[in-house]
């Protein structure tokens, strides 16, 4: 059926209205408009990252401010980064995925199983990649089905997957570290493309695809709608349950990609890969401005969140501070970031 239009009544009940007022006319200043724009929402993150860079430059000098080190930071960030892109969708969709770290470990184990490696040989290592990604996606689909059709709370369903996937990875690997035999796989992940490491390229590609998916496609719109108001989405005729499965499958897919990346970086697969990565990913997403209750979030914010934590780690390493201090600082930053986000959210809403 085609669109309907109600013709305004012949007798005007209110002053005839011209075209809707544009942004310029509605009385808000350019500054508040800037703040409420996409750029403004990430302004705080840009500033935070800038401040971190300044601190790094002051405390570590040239060791910090060279292109090699910047690439190191991003390279370090890339694996968590890929996980965080998937996590962004899950959280915007009103859920949570605690299983990504251990699914990543499982993926790395399956990819490096003797059977898979034998099949792959030296040059067909794409089989290992496909295996890892398939494992991740299947785990995500299982999460989604349990949550959507089993009506299990996302926290518990993915917690079960966290424990279960890790256990399965231990069984499959017999708790050993499985070394990658394909030299060409190792070379691929060690290579640079246009001076930039392959791991970073993967992160960039995943982030760009994620941005397009979230902002330009019906998939992204459905995710935001379901996270923003599940019941309204359902009553508007969206397939809420099915879409929820897709969202967790996407998160599993990114976990699969991340497991390939870590296999490439460490040249081995083991059940301990990715331990606690889910928490780093969630922290990066939330610090990046995505609401933990769902309905609102950005990929750009998540990328900043990931970079902020990676930069922080780098600064601490450059200054020879131990990991315990790092963890403490991370905790403080998470709380500060969320506090700032809430302040800001409250202000833009009222404005």
């Amino acid at each position, binding site marked *: *059926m*085609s*669109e*309907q*239009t*109600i*013709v*305004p*009544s012949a007798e005007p*009940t*209110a002053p005839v*209205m011209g075209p*809707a*007022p544009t*942004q310029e006319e*509605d009385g808000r200043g350019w500054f508040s408009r800037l703040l409420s724009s996409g750029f403004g929402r990430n302004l705080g993150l840009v500033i935070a990252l800038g401040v971190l860079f300044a601190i790094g430059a002051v405390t570590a000098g040239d060791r910090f401010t060279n292109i090699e080190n910047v690439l190191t930071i991003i390279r370090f960030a890339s694996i968590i980064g890929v996980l965080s892109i998937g996590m962004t969708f899950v959280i915007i969709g009103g859920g949570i995925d605690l299983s990504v770290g251990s699914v990543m470990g499982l993926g790395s184990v399956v990819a490096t199983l003797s059977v898979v490696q034998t099949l792959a040989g030296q040059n067909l290592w794409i089989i290992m990649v496909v295996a890892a990604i398939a494992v991740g996606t299947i785990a995500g689909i299982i999460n989604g089905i349990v949550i959507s059709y089993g009506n299990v709370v996302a926290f518990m369903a993915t917690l079960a997957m966290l424990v279960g996937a890790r256990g399965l990875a231990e069984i499959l690997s017999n708790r050993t570290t499985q070394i990658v035999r394909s030299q060409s796989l190792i070379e691929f992940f060690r290579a640079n493309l246009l001076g930039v490491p392959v791991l970073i390229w993967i992160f960039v590609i995943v982030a760009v695809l994620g941005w397009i998916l979230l902002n*330009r*496609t*019906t*998939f*992204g*719109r459905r995710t*935001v*709608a379901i996270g*923003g*108001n599940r*019941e*309204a*989405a*359902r*009553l*508007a*005729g*969206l*397939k809420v349950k099915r879409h929820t499965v897709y969202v967790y499958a996407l998160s599993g897919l990114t976990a699969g990609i991340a497991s390939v990346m870590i296999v490439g970086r460490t040249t081995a697969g083991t059940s301990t890969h990715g331990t606690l990565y889910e928490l780093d990913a969630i922290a990066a997403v939330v610090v990046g401005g995505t609401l933990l209750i769902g*309905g*609102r979030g950005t990929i750009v914010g998540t990328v900043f969140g990931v970079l902020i934590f990676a930069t922080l780690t780098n600064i601490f390493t450059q200054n020879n501070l131990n990991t315990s201090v790092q963890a403490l600082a991370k905790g403080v930053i998470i709380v500060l970031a969320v506090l700032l986000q809430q302040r800001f959210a409250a*202000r833009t*809403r*009222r*404005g």
Partner: protein
Amino acid sequence: MDKVDHAVPLLEVRGVTKAFAGVRALKSVDLSIEAGEVHCILGQNGAGKSTLIKLLAGVYTPDDGEIIWRGEPITITNPVAALDLGIATMYQELDVVDGLSVAENIFLGHEIANAGFINRRKAFKLARDLLRRLGHGDLSPNREVGSLSAANKQIVSMARALSRDTRLIIMDEPSAVLDSEEVKNLFRVVRELTAAGIAVVYISHRLEEIRQIGDRISVIKDGRSTASGLSVTETPTGELIRLMTGRELENVFPPAPPVPVDSPEVLTVTGLTVRGLFENVNFAVRAGEVVGLAGLVGSGRSEILEAVYGALKPSAGTVAIAGVALKPGSVRDAVNHDMGLSPEERKSQGLLLEEPVYRNVTLSTFARFARFSFLNERAERSAARTQIEALELRPADPDRPAGTLSGGNQQKILLARWLVHGTRVLLLDEPTRGVDVGARAEIYALIRKLSAAGTAIVIVSSEIEEVLGLADRVLIIAEGRVLATVAASDIDEHGVLETVMEGSAA
């Protein structure tokens, strides 16, 4: 009581202003409230009523102007200060804690305790006394509040107000969640309160209620007092509407043109049953016809609508559109066959409050505008804009978050959603709840135009007058059964209630 001086009003508000982020919500409001009166505050949504209440409740402090309490200028810095003065507020969304008992809720914040240990026995007894005073001695102070009906929650909220030495109770749309029996009880309680010298500030959109319960009326329009302390009995309705809207308003319900005799049957509901909620509901709606479901809160009318839409899975029966049976319990299938629902709870069931208006309008159609799954936001915005202009949405800004619009305009967003989709059957659940008088008339006119254009409409409302005014035929429902189907012109509000009472008794 210390110094009682009847020359001094209980509460006076003089020239109060309040701005948020540069927007002036209150420009100049005056109010004078006497002890023992029911003072009604009228105003359209967005006029500033909520802001005024929050100033009196200590949630906000005024930028300018004076609040005078029993002859002395005061500043109410926080909600506890307001309670200490004797000003209690019953908010529209009742602020009771579902997980606590009735007694615990009543004494929340000033527990009956010795050295931090709650004296349960004393709290129970005092709570029982308060409930008796409110005519609800049957309500056990040990009941968990979450298990109570909205009406009983309201009683708990009122008991809490009385548990302190309260002189003024502000009630923000207390009748919005009540059916007519419960409203009667509310009024009885209000009369008892005023007889005891307590003043009540009563806020409602329903003029007929104000006529029944109010003593004096103050009107606010666009943050300004347009009238203060009018007598309820001497001010004609037309005058009140003019003060609220700034324009005359007549004939609230536009006349209904007769449905053409050859108009085809679009919606057919046969033997629809949801076990435990309602049974064997049969009705049909022809193109251009409006059918109303009338009944009390809890009669099953909203559930019937939800089951027709597929949002509730029926245990038996079928729903068909133009002869094609729908998949039971599938909203998706209903929407695909051009059925739309405007749900009862706009905010929790209808809208994405943080998202812009246009995305709310296209929530059920954005995929249609997309190509290969890529959104076409330009086309979406333009389709939304067409409806925004046709429905005279205010402000007419497609990019504003839906949550910032008034109730009436939020309702228009939902209508716009189904207009963009194109519907043959439109189900409207409480289309004017929380909508002010001016916007109501616009929504009524829209419903008329839709039906004139051939849409089959089913409407549910707790205001029987509204159902009778809009519908061609009315199904009278009580306790999950359809008692009668009558032409709206053959029955009045009294008749509907009579049928309901008799049917329930049987």
